[in-house]
């Protein structure tokens, strides 16, 4: 990581199995100056989060192999980083769908419904999530 410059890029992990959605978000956030990596399921997502330590994770719930909530459970239990990383859940499942308990337990920073969220809105929420992180104000 380029630690000398003031423009430290914020690292973002997008975990989303729908390629068009992942691509749209990647384009948007890269344009805004983030360093973006993507994963197509919970398992790959957990691996990338563990190795790359992104500053923020945008996480879908319904995915093949391992769901977003499974991944987040494991990440939260894993280590200090996993416990504190900012996570924005972005899904089309609303919290009435018997997942509320899991959502509460895994402590995401935000829970957003895809169909109700604009790119701009998502961008604002990500910034809001990151706001407490003093080192990452240079975007």
């Amino acid at each position, binding site marked *: 990581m380029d630690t000398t410059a003031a423009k430290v890029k914020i690292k973002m992990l997008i975990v989303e199995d729908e390629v*068009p959605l992942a691509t*749209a978000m990647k384009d948007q956030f890269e*344009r805004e100056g983030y360093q973006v990596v993507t994963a197509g399921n919970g398992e790959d997502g957990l691996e990338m989060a563990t190795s790359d330590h992104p500053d923020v994770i945008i996480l879908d719930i*319904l995915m093949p192999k391992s769901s977003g909530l499974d991944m987040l459970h494991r990440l939260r239990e894993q280590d200090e980083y996993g416990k504190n990383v900012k996570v924005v859940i972005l899904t089309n*499942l609303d919290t009435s769908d018997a997942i509320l308990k899991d959502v509460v337990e895994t402590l995401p920073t935000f829970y957003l419904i*895809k*169909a109700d*969220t604009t*790119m*701009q809105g998502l961008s604002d929420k990500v910034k809001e999530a990151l706001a407490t992180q003093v080192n990452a104000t240079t975007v």
Partner: protein
Amino acid sequence: VIIKWLRKLSVAKKLAIIISLIFLILLLGLANFWLSMRIMSGIRAYVGGEGLWSKSQKEAVTNLIRYSVTFDEVDYQAYREFLQVPLGDKQARLELEKKEYNYELTRQGIIQGGNSPDDVDDMIFLYRRFRRVSYMDIAIRDWAQGDALIEKLMDKGEKIHAIISTTGDEDDPMAQDVRLDELSELVMEVYALDKELTTLENHFSATLSEGSRWIRDVLFVVTIILSILLGSFTLFISLYISQMIVEVDKKKNEFIYLVSHQLKTPLTSSSWYSELLLQDHKIDKEKRRSYLLEISNTNKRMVDLVNTLLNVSRIEMGTFVVNPVMSSLTSLIDEVIASFAVQKMKRNIEIQKQYQEGLPSIAIDPQTIRIVVSNLLSNAIKYSYDGGKVTVSLSKKGSFVQIKVQDEGIGIPKSEQGRLFEKFFRASNAKTLDTDGSGLGLYIVESVVKNVGGTLSYTSAEGKGTSFIVSFPLEGLKKKRKKE
């Protein structure tokens, strides 16, 4: 086989079957109860009747013998009076032996036999229904033999009466001696008859008692079996219903998944890409094109999904309209194949056509054929390996025309083949390969094909490929009008 057959039925039909089975078992239980009661009551009445019969017969003999000593007409009348009981029973028996019996005569006989009028029906029932059952048969033979002996007794009685009422020479001791000798001879014969009758009477009762014990055992076993049946059936129903509730819940969740993931996702996608296009900064031409293409694709996906859901709803509500018109299957299938050009190219799939020459035009509904073939073809392409081959063949087999769609793709795991046509079902290997799928395609194909009088079959081997065969009768598809 039964479970497979049950699986295919609609929930309403399953419930109707279950309810009728419960009803049937309850009816059987009631019938069993009613039958047991009637049989037992009938046997009790016969054993009671036999008691009266024997008592009267004994009284008759006693009075006849007393008459032979007292020469008192009163005794003779008493003897005749007592005989009325066995004679009444005989009248009933003779009537019941007839093919068509007279109810009134029978009833009269039974009541004359000293039986309660309330027992008449049960006694007739037992006699007529169980005439050929061994115990009843033996008892009735005893009864008939008893009647024959009663006749003999009456013959002796008449002779005794004749001797006593003959006014002989009172003062002729010789003549008197002859009379007394004759009388004592007859009395001895009456004693012998009485002894024979006693043996028969005992046998009759013993036979009926044995029969009633046998029936008790049979009815006991039947009752136990019915109870076990009813019990296990109730258990089965409870398990089935709870399973059904779980299943319905699962289906509901699958539907929520379907709608949320498959309808909201393309909606989100087209909205986001539009937003990207509308942003102020410059986007290069290539990116712009890819964004627009994405919007167009997601729109198509939504239209397809809405059509699929509409078809499911039409099938389930019985409003799926089929309007057969004479058309060429080959050109219709060519048209469907042509519509898959993009998917085919993306995966580098080769589609081979094998159409039999000179197929006749048949009455088909183009929309139905399109739904069937495009669903099968879409699956064949989706679940082929890249660069694979899909064969679409069309041929005449007997009085059917056959459409076969064959691929060399991932196949269907054997353990999951039984559930292939279930709504929302997707094979595990299909889910891993492609998360985008409603699990409705084959459900629709099967329902539609059945609906128009066709058949659907398949063969599949995991990792080697699948082929689906749809057959339609040459005389054309069944017309289905919209229900009013």
